[in-house]
């Protein structure tokens, strides 16, 4: 097998005395769409945030494309701000609450990173932004400010902002949880489109139908550990562990 794009080795994370990640080991290959499911408090969002250093972790190691993320080799010392920013630029992230920049138009939200971080010429950045906004179905809205957009549209802009940087890996943190039910589908459709195009994605989600349809692998987290993982059909329909069965029971009627 080729070198995995993402490799997490024994990642531990504490908030004060509470250990929320108790040794996560995970490998994700190029082009995989890995869904992380689990009850709230199981550590799935925290793990996602560790990957681009929005959270510090205390032990273990995370590599993206062979590069060790956030900390120096050997000792667990945090890298400098510039080095970490450069690493983050190669990892996209989409948030539950969109977090668009409210003082910028949709297009400016997308071009900011292209111009300031990747130092691309403005014209090229604008062209890239328009292409991506078109791809997420918002070419008509590129001059709109976030407050002029619906939640689903805002989230699609946020996805365009993340993927326009051509990251090696995109992290999706419960991106449909804040949306009205009728707006969820448009966002999931964009994500499905990206998944089909071969983008490597790590998706924390409660949308079990989406997970089943789009994910190449499902990871079930429980109490800060990975409890079970496998192909979506096997894992979601025939869970091996009691805990996963109980968890899936809450989505009653979806699978059986």
């Amino acid at each position: 097998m080729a070198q995995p794009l993402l490799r997490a080795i024994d990642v531990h994370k504490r908030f004060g005395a509470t250990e929320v990640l108790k040794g996560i080991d995970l490998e994700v290959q190029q082009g995989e769409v890995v869904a992380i499911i689990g009850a709230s408090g199981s550590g799935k969002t925290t793990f996602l945030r560790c990957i681009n250093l929005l959270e510090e972790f205390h032990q273990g190691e995370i590599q993206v494309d062979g590069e060790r993320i956030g900390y120096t080799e050997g000792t667990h010392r945090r890298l400098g701000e510039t080095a970490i920013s450069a690493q983050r630029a190669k990892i996209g992230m989409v948030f539950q609450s969109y977090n668009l920049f409210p003082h910028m138009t949709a297009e400016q939200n997308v071009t900011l990173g292209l111009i300031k971080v990747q130092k691309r010429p403005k014209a090229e950045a604008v062209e890239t932004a328009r292409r991506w906004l078109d791809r997420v179905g918002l070419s008509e809205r590129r001059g709109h400010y976030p407050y002029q957009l619906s939640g689903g549209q805002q989230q699609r802009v946020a996805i365009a902002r993340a993927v326009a940087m051509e990251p090696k890996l995109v992290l999706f943190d419960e991106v449909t949880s804040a949306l009205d039910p009728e707006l969820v589908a448009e966002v999931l459709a964009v994500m499905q489109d990206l998944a089909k195009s071969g983008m490597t994605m790590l998706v924390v989600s409660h949308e079990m139908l989406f997970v089943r349809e789009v994910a190449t692998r499902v990871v079930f987290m429980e109490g800060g550990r990975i409890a079970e993982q496998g192909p979506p059909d096997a894992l979601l329909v025939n869970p091996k562990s009691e805990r996963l069965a109980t968890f899936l029971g809450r989505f009653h009627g979806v699978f059986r």
Partner: protein
Amino acid sequence: MFEPGSFLYEAWAARYGLLAGLATTARLSGITIVIGSLIGILGGVALSYGPWPVRLLLRGYVDAVRGIPVLVLILFSYYGLALLGIQISPFTAGVVALGGFCGAHMSETVRGAIESIPIGQTEAGKAIGLTFWQRLRYVLLPQAIRRLLPPWVNTAVEMVKGTTLLSIIGVVELLLATQQTIARNYLVLQFYFAAGMLYVLVNFAISQLGALIERRTAHFRY
């Protein structure tokens, strides 16, 4: 109406003194507000993100200076510094005292404005790879400006009024110039009223400036 002893006659006779006083007030206010704003932006950013020794130091400065009456600061920076061997003109002493006072207030204002911006903005900036200064420049400060304008105008207006206290150490600003005029013509009511109106005029100009910037930055909402 224009005979000697009438307000208009005496005002015309005293015009140079009064305008010079007004100019001094405007200059003092301008310098103070600019210095205060610069201290405020740097202080506010440092209070929000600085390493703890810097924060501790600034916290001491802000709390001390905000707690001390401006008049005491002025007397200290003129007489107190002189006793310590630092001889400065009344005007400079005024700038030091009022600038320091203004800076302390503005620092708190800027800190409050920055910290009131949702953490998600910082995280989104981080996630696309912006460095600390880029996040400040492109994400946080443009949003903070909107929030700090109203208190900024308040503080600026307070500073203009605060310059009157410098008459005590002999800076001939508008108030002292007015008092000198009154000493010659005894038109107490008329000249204090006129001086008061001039202060209102200056402060109105400041609040209009604030409103203008507010409109300029009002192209977005949440």
